[in-house]
């Protein structure tokens, strides 16, 4: 399968969205709304639920499942208040020592005048910094599209998993094609060049692992994902906060390929 075919599968409207995973992974779910500042962004689903017997905070980017809900969820493109709502719930999770599970599925943060006016860049930036210091385990699963900064805003985590046909990229293949290749139909080439598949991301150590997809047996697939998450939570919760945060920083710290810089001068 080509990289661009995977992009199309990752965007397939028939694919389960965040709400489907939340329904299967968790029980006793309470949805929590609002950023306590400006509004409530339906592109971000957040709340508390039980993962097995463990209370967790979940945050998912929801694309919607029919035309009406897709419009309401802004097709899974969060606005600044969505990122701030996510951060509010993460801080709440930190206070009560609840692990955080993020489900990422977005073509990117909302692109609009309103988002700029309310500080889209600042909202994402704050999430990156605060998530790096969040004193509770964070696990992110990219279930469909991981679109650039809009995805990263929920993916500064101790573990990052990607579904088999999920993609994670700095820019959409279409955007890359129009800027760099300047010709029609170059999306497929761009997708290849960007190394955006789950398998590529694992190779580049951006993702810990690739999760096999089996939507025909979605319940069973989610049960297995739940076991994996519970296993990780057990391991991460056993660590001291200091170790947890040092490991999280080190996890991102090593992501860089460049010339020179041996013999670090610090």
């Amino acid at each position: 399968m080509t990289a661009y075919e995977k992009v199309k599968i990752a965007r397939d409207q028939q694919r389960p969205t965040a709400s489907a995973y939340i329904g299967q992974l968790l029980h006793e779910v309470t949805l929590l709304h609002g950023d306590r500042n400006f509004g409530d962004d339906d592109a971000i689903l957040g709340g508390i639920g039980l993962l097995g017997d463990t209370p967790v905070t979940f945050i998912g980017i929801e694309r919607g499942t029919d035309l009406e809900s897709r419009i309401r969820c802004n097709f899974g493109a969060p606005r600044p208040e969505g990122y701030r709502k996510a951060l509010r719930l993460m801080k709440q999770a930190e206070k009560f020592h609840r692990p955080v599970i993020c489900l990422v599925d977005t073509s990117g943060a909302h692109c609009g005048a309103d988002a700029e006016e309310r500080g889209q860049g600042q909202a994402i930036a704050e999430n990156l910094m605060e998530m790096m210091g969040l004193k509770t385990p964070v696990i992110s699963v990219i279930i469909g599209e991981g679109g650039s900064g809009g995805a990263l805003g929920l993916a500064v985590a101790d573990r990052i998993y990607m579904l088999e046909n999920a993609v994670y990229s700095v820019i959409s293949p279409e955007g890359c094609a129009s800027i760099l290749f300047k010709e029609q139909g170059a999306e497929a080439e761009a997708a290849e060049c960007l190394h955006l598949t789950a398998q590529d991301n694992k190779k580049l150590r951006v993702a810990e692992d690739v999760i096999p997809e089996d939507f025909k047996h979605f319940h069973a697939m989610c049960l297995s994902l739940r076991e994996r998450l519970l296993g990780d939570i057990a391991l991460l919760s056993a660590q001291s906060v200091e170790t947890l945060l040092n490991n999280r920083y080190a996890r991102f710290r090593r992501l860089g390929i460049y010339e020179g810089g041996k013999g670090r001068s610090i």
Partner: protein
Amino acid sequence: MSEFNIADLFRKPANQLEPGGVPRKPADDREQCPRCKQYFPRKRLEKNNRVCPSCGHHMSLSARRRLEAVCAVGSFSELFSDITARDFLNFPGYEEKLKKARDGSGENEGVICGTGIIGGVRCALFAMESAFMMGSMGAAVGERITRTFEYATVNRLPVVGFTASGGARMQEGIISLMQMAKISGAIQRHGEAGGFYLAILTHPTTGGVTASFAMLGDIIIAEPKALVGFAGKRVIEHTTKSKLAADFQTAEFVLKHGFLDAIVERKQLGDVIGRLLKQHTTEKKI
């Protein structure tokens, strides 16, 4: 190849439209202000730190000139300059672009880092070079800035950073996106240790740089009229099929919406930075 013509050896191409031609040197060493269209001797512009003497427009200033302009004479000492980009994805055209950027800017990467003294206070510094692939952020830029914050944390120094960037460097794929998280983490640790970070946003500061370290300063200052935004204005206009105001995403617009502490003219930057650094210097803190 066209037929060899001995006459070509004795005649210079008249203009750059002619094959093999080179741009003709301007009649004198003058440069036009892009805003008021007036011409000024280049030397006079340089002396004015490339602020138009007539209309006050802040023209682009190289990273090295910027650092020279704010640091005490001879106090800047560069760090991490051996860290440079690698084309690890074999991205089409990347090697050529890097070469062009190096030749065009005279720098080997899109950011210059080091230490210097401003207003009598020693600090760690970084300045992005917009002439180097639009100041785009790849792994080398990310590593240099991360190390600057780590160096500042260990040596208990404040950080002054000048941003100028089109965003993440897409030729490095997902690894360029990861630099946003990496740098934000280094800032978080510097901040935890009590360090002061002053971000100065210059034209243009966009995309992944806005969505990470540009917006994470304890104090965020911008130069007048600098473009500061996340999504591109044209992209927004295209997506939403609407026309945006002329001042959209200018520093003044961003200040009005509450995301900047102040707008400071270039000629006052050195004083303001020095003052703020001094006011953040105590025995206990970094």
